[in-house]
């Protein structure tokens, strides 16, 4: 296995003495991967990313980036990282190009690289328009251009699709896949939407209330989801349906019966059982397996 680009060991952080914001996070981002860091708002994603980038001080545990502690060679490590943390960090009184010029020499990038990254994010023709006149989506794109300016080995993007329209989100997804595929960039991307990142990531980490609930490859996650898959059934007599399907751990709530299933053959069998016992089946559909449901499943599987 490759050496991880980011490795945290029992990383914990307190914003205040009483409140533990992060609890023993063991994050491991493999070289060449696209790592989706998922969690609802306030779960500790930005805090973790801020700690990795040295924006917050004095955590418990350790952080290694490119195999070394950030503070042992802060400038050397940061030269290899492009980042976008929280909202866009841009100078409103400057144009897109001028914003990139501010950091061009700092990253040792060429002048041609500015046009290149602006072209990549589709902001090549904004001319003399200052950033304060940009839409939120344009600002987000420019922030991504800024993160790409050093042609980084590691790209850290915190909720990069905020403010992007659906087309922009799809473009961003394609861009991330392209950067990973063609430039070998390792990408750590945080989001609160599983559906948004699952089409591009190779690895997933799920954090809730400062604790890491899951970490593994996307296929590991899919296997887990499959295990916890539920079917929603609505029949003419849901109580009888619960009786008939008691082997599937049924739950009768909100006018539906929720039952566990593992294969499509099982769905056919369930339908047959219900109709053979004279029940009318009004609805049968897989339960929406979104992040919220996944959190519930993960939390219940851990308890």
């Amino acid at each position, binding site marked *: 296995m490759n050496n991880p680009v980011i490795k945290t060991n029992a990383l914990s952080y307190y914003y205040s003495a009483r409140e533990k914001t992060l609890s023993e996070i063991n994050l491991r981002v493999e070289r060449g991967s696209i790592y989706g860091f998922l969690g609802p708002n306030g779960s500790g994603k930005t805090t973790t990313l801020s700690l990795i980038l040295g*924006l*917050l001080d004095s955590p418990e545990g350790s952080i290694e980036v490119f195999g070394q502690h950030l503070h042992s060679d*802060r*400038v050397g490590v940061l030269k290899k990282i492009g980042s976008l943390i929280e909202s866009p*960090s841009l*100078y409103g009184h*400057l144009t897109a190009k*001028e914003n990139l010029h501010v950091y061009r*020499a*700092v990253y040792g990038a060429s002048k041609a690289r500015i046009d290149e990254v602006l072209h990549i994010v589709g902001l090549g023709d904004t001319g003399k328009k200052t950033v304060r006149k940009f839409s939120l989506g344009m600002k987000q794109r420019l922030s991504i251009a800024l993160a790409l300016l050093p042609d980084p080995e590691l790209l850290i993007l915190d909720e990069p699709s905020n403010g992007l329209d659906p087309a922009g989100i799809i473009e961003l997804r394609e861009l991330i896949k392209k950067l990973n595929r063609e430039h070998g960039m390792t990408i750590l991307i945080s989001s609160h939407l599983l559906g948004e990142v699952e089409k591009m990531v190779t690895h997933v980490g799920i954090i809730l209330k400062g604790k890491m609930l899951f970490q593994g490859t996307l296929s590991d996650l899919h296997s887990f989801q499959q295990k916890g898959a539920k079917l929603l059934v609505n029949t003419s007599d849901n109580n009888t349906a619960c009786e008939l399907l008691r082997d599937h751990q049924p739950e009768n709530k909100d006018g539906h019966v929720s039952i566990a299933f593992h294969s499509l053959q099982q769905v056919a069998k369930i339908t047959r059982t219900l109709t053979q016992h004279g029940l009318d089946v009004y609805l049968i559909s897989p339960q929406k397996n979104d992040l919220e449901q996944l959190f519930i499943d993960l939390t219940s599987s851990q308890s």
Partner: protein
Amino acid sequence: MSLIISLRSEILKSKRTSAFYFTLIGAAVIPFTLLVNILADGLPEEGKTSKDPINAMFNLSSGMNGLVLFPLFIILICTLLPQIEFKNSTWKQVFTSPQKKEDIFVAKFLSIHLLMVLFLVATHLFIWVVVLISHFLLPQFNILHHSFDAGKVLEDNAHAYLSTLGICAIQFWIGLRSRNFIIPVAIGLVLWFLGTLLVLEYKSSASPYFPYSFPAIRFSPLFSSRLDQVEWTSFGYSFLFLAIGFSDFRRRRKLK
């Protein structure tokens, strides 16, 4: 080299900011006032009687600048420049860029000094414009044929600059600490007013030790003989508060 790169980055940021325009507008205040005065009432009395109109105009400018305008300019500029980062929420980008903390800090301080120098240079260029206009408006004085004491102007500016070094470092530290624009400006104005009162009104023996009094020392017959000592003290305060400011800046990683 890394400091020069950081300084260049700071200069690029201040392009088209209020800090830059404020410097040029602030530098034009005294020359403009002088011009209005000349248009309304002719040459200043000092210029007429001494028959030395160019130096008289520069003296007037140096007095008003050194005592009032330049210290106030420093108080405002030390707040305006850090506000660029606060206003745009760009501190996190600054800290995640590969720059040493000391380079960021010193580059910001140097960019303030560049604006201070620009202010002084621009003031004198504007005064020269006033001299030229006066020459054509008041041909009877034949102004351009009078002497110009460049050494005296340079000396006055050096005094104005050195005596405000302490104020600059203190205000820079407060400006970096505060997301709020009003607080550092209010603190600076109150302390400057107090310092000026201590020298000119109360003639306090504490004034040669209070940095906000230093700009006024030159204009006090009682303390002006201690100007050298005061300027060294100003220099010392500058180092002291820069060190305190840097230790504070280094400690706080995430300035929101």
